[in-house]
């Protein structure tokens, strides 16, 4: 059992467990946390899961753990592990069931005072235009050919369908399209789950939120992003729906026998994997990219629908109601990247699960608008609390595999949250705090209560204190549409 004094304190915000802490570890584990957050993490299995991640064949550098860490399935949520393409593995469990679950932020010039009388109507309109909840379907059932096109093209498919602008694509991670997606690597089961879910929010902790830009910390970066104090913004948190879940389920099942075939021994069967250069590994990578592209298209369609909601409520009342793309990021993904590891440029698969890419200024792959400031990093708080906009830094490339936190991280189980919080009371409290809520059920609302999550301000303080991200803006919620 891991104890606090097993860690080496590197700084106020960095702690390490050495590679020889456990005999099967191949690399050290680095934790970005305060002492208090680290003590929190010791309360569940997240530290042990991070240690298990350090046993993956071909793991390079160090396993990174973000301050919003909590226990996941095999691999901690808030974990980052890079494996070498030359001799490493790819693990579906280290990417997550909801492949390319991520966040999109959109900005506007709508001022709070002019929009306030219409926020209740806006909450209803968003709920209407952006289908959410259990069993909801999109407006269109896709054919097999259309689904395969979405898999290969991602956001580009939505542009051809008239639901995206050029700027939307430019300001999406990977332009909303991972190359190397192959629909032949995806099961019929997954396609069946996918065909009528595109353009839907889903359920669980997914949401659409209208926020007020409350405070700016970096005016140059905020200006580049189109964020202004006192104006509205929109945040979408959603992923690949049943499609990604089925792909992960299929491959975690398949890889149970693959690991035996390749003689790979793992401390947790949810970490099952295949060599990156094996047919099985390449198949999963190709399927994962299909799910990633589906999720990019999904968030793009939801953004398009949100624009319709804004138009329905504000057109004719507010001169400039349009929502502009700030950025769209993934926080469950496996990405092919080059990192300097042990002094050598190394081609790796960076597994980020509940962690966000946070490339610094000048890094390849950033849109021109952000090349000077670094990649936007979007950190939603729990319901009713602040969300943050950060940027990646040069230091993040060197110190955290170009990665950062993704949110607030759970501290309480769903059943515990439901026992502690009454959904209807929470709804009233949020309303009293000036927040309009549309939610499918009070029980679902209670599960997402703020007290079920860590303090996002503390999480952000860690990543900015550690130098792997820089604060740009803090947002305050006004409207929440919960899946």
């Amino acid at each position: 059992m891991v104890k606090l004094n097993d860690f080496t304190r590197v700084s106020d915000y960095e702690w390490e467990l050495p590679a020889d802490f456990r005999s099967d570890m191949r690399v050290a584990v680095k934790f970005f946390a305060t002492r208090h957050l680290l003590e929190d993490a010791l309360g569940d299995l997240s530290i042990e899961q991070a240690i298990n991640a350090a046993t993956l064949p071909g793991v390079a550098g160090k396993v990174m753990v973000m301050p919003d860490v909590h226990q996941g399935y095999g691999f901690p949520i808030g974990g980052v592990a890079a494996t070498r393409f030359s001799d490493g593995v790819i693990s579906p469990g280290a990417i997550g069931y909801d492949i390319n679950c991520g966040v999109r932020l959109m900005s506007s010039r709508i001022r709070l005072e002019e929009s306030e009388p219409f926020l209740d109507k806006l909450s209803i309109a968003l709920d209407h235009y952006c289908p959410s909840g259990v069993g909801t379907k999109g407006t269109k059932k896709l054919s097999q050919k259309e689904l395969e096109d979405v898999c290969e093209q991602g956001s580009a498919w939505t542009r051809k369908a008239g639901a995206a602008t050029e700027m939307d694509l430019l300001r999406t991670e990977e332009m909303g399209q991972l190359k190397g997606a192959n629909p032949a690597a995806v099961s019929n089961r997954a396609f069946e789950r996918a065909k009528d879910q595109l353009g839907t929010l889903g359920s669980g902790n997914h949401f659409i939120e209208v926020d007020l830009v409350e405070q700016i910390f970096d005016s140059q970066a905020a200006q580049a992003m189109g964020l202004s104090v006192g104006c509205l913004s929109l945040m979408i948190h959603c992923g690949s729906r049943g499609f990604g879940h089925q792909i992960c389920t299929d491959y975690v099942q398949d890889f149970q026998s693959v690991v035996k075939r390749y003689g790979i021994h793992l401390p947790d069967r949810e970490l099952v994997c295949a060599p990156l250069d094996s047919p099985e590994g390449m198949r999963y990578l190709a399927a994962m990219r299909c799910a990633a592209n589906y999720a990019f298209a999904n968030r793009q369609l939801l953004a398009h629908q949100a624009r319709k909601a804004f138009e329905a409520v504000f057109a004719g009342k507010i001169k400039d109601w349009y929502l502009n793309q700030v950025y769209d990021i993934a926080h469950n993904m496996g990405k092919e990247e080059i990192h300097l590891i042990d002094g050598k440029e190394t081609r790796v698969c960076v597994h980020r699960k509940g962690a966000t890419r946070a490339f610094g200024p000048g890094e390849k792959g950033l849109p021109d608008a952000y090349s000077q400031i670094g990649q936007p990093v979007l950190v939603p708080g729990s319901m009713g609390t602040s969300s943050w906009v950060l940027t990646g830094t040069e230091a993040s490339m060197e110190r955290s595999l170009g990665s950062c936190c993704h949110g607030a991280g759970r501290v309480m189980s769903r059943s515990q949250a439901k026992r502690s919080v009454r959904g209807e009371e929470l709804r009233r409290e949020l309303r009293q705090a000036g927040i309009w809520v549309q939610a499918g059920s009070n029980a679902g609302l209670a599960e997402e209560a703020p007290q079920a999550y860590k303090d996002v301000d503390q999480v952000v303080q860690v990543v900015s204190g550690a130098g792997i991200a820089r604060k740009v803006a803090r947002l305050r919620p006004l409207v929440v549409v919960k899946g």
Partner: protein
Amino acid sequence: MSHTADWAVKIWAMDYFDLLRIAAEAMYSLQMVEIDRREPGIPIEFLVQDEDEEITLVGFLSELLYHQDTHFIALDNFIIEMQQAGIRVCAVGFPIIRIEKEIKAVTYSGLKVQHLPQEIEAIVVFDV
């Protein structure tokens, strides 16, 4: 069972096939699935690869989730038997009227099937 990430259940049964039935019931019960039994229901048949008991349990429950998510039906009246190719499951699918909270995947995290002196016990963690 309390589980930070999502839902976990512990179930007990007299034999393995009964364990599968009870696991199905537990999964639907957690989601507070309401079904429409006014019509006879649709016969559903599938095969689950017979690997170890844990992998088979996940495969079985994943099949139920697939039907739930794709066709919005819940399966009951299970007849389960061992065949050469695997475990053959015959069931009846009933339309779902309502789901309170959706399970999205069955995980291998913390998965355990244990043969105790009087019964079989299993722990399954679900992703919501």
